[in-house]
């Protein structure tokens, strides 16, 4: 695990490059890549774009701690997380989570754990800008709650 890795970026995330940066491991039999992608919502106000901001020092620290926690919880070989900040357009990647392990079970579990924790624990916030000129800060959605324009 690279403890010096940065987890936040203002640059576009390219999935192919992100995957290529994971390197190779002859012990990895499974690799799970999760991409959180900005989408429009056909049932509600049309989305123009999103803007993400963070309390960056604490967001970096929390993301690092989450990857360490997941590594203790499951026998994974590597976990990488990259979260966008700034303006992100429809169709662009907002967050990428890459987990490699010997077997698929721990890769899926660690990946799910990481993305759920990102949504609830990491001090990152997104503001949705709509085509009608309005905007609103997104609220963390929990299962069973009414939908807002989110993925």
């Amino acid at each position, binding site marked *: 695990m690279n403890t010096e890795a940065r987890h936040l970026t203002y640059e576009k995330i390219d999935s192919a490059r992100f995957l290529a940066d994971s390197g190779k491991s002859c012990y990895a039999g499974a690799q799970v890549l999760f991409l*959180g992608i900005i989408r429009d919502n056909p049932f509600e106000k049309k989305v123009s774009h999103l803007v*993400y*901001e*963070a*309390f960056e*020092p*604490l*967001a970096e*620290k*929390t993301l690092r701690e989450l990857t360490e926690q997941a590594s203790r919880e499951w026998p994974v070989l590597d976990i990488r997380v990259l*979260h966008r900040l700034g303006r992100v357009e429809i169709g662009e990647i*907002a*967050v990428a989570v890459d987990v490699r392990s010997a077997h698929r079970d721990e890769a899926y579990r660690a990946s799910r754990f990481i*993305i759920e924790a*990102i*949504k*609830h*624990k*990491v*001090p*990152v*916030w*997104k*503001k949705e800008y709509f085509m009608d000129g309005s905007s609103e*800060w*997104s*609220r*963390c959605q929990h299962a069973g709650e009414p939908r807002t324009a989110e*993925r």
Partner: protein
Amino acid sequence: MQIKILLFAALREIAQVSEFAVEAVEAISCEEAMARLAAYYPDITGLLPQCAVAKNGVFTGRDVLLAQGDELAVLPPASGG
């Protein structure tokens, strides 16, 4: 004694500031610092109960005391990902 409060996202937007300095004679709790912030910016009052707090970049409890030079970050509910 001065404590710096950092505001983010909706809080920053409502208060129209990203930083706020609280003056105190002695150590005060995070809760008290937030109350003083809300007294100055009453429109943020409704959002504060939902916020987490961090002291000097570390998540902490609202009852934790703040001293000279401490930085309190008031964090609305996360919406990353």
